[in-house]
């Protein structure tokens, strides 16, 4: 069982946790990414998330497929929020369950790492001084 979605409303980690819970699960692991009030020393007021929607949903689905192929008893759901998020709000929730804890913990870690590597979602930080910047984590700039 797996499900992924891009959504435009507030995320609810408890709902996703309930979705993966079942009698065969011994472990549930949840990861919530939240908007932090500071990045690289600059105070952040909000983050604007945008996506290449159809591809992002496909890529999320591929990531969950891969996770379930590695751990067949896995149940996994992921929701990523798009739009303007205030400090403290959740941008992504991943919830998984598995009979055993090691597999559950490994799956949630793999899913967030792959999501950050592959899923076409972008964020623009809004700063206290009114400026905004695209976040291109660690990428080198090229001149064209």
């Amino acid at each position, binding site marked *: 069982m797996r499900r992924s979605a891009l959504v435009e409303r507030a995320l609810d980690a408890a709902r996703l946790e309930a979705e993966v819970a079942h009698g065969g699960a011994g472990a549930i692991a949840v990861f919530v*990414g939240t908007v932090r009030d500071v990045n690289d020393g600059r105070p952040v007021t909000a983050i604007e*998330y*945008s*996506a*290449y929607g*159809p*591809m*992002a949903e*496909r890529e999320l689905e591929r990531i969950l497929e891969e996770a379930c192929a590695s751990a067949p008893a896995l149940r996994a759901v992921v929701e*990523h929020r798009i739009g303007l998020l205030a400090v403290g709000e959740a*941008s*992504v929730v991943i919830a998984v369950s598995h009979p055993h804890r090691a597999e559950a913990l490994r799956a949630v870690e793999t899913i*967030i790492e792959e*999501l*950050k*590597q*592959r*899923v*076409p*979602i*972008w*964020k*623009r930080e809004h700063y206290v001084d009114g400026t905004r910047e*695209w*976040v*291109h*984590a*660690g*990428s*080198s*700039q*090229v*001149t*064209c």
Partner: protein
Amino acid sequence: MELDVLLFASYADAFGARQARVSVSAGATVSDVLQAVLAQMPGKQLPRAAVAVNQAYAPADARVNPGDEIAVIPPVAGG
């Protein structure tokens, strides 16, 4: 051939639109398309981008065809 290319994030900002039309020769590759897009934004500082063809990442030497859905994917930052 004429191709429409989807742009996102810093690329859409730099271009001033979410879609660019480029002209490339028959047999053009992903790399050729990306160069053609960048040629329309001379002097802009942009991060290195990947390209997706039909909603999946494509290698630089993949051929593109009329009707393909082509998108420039700047460094992603989800999560």
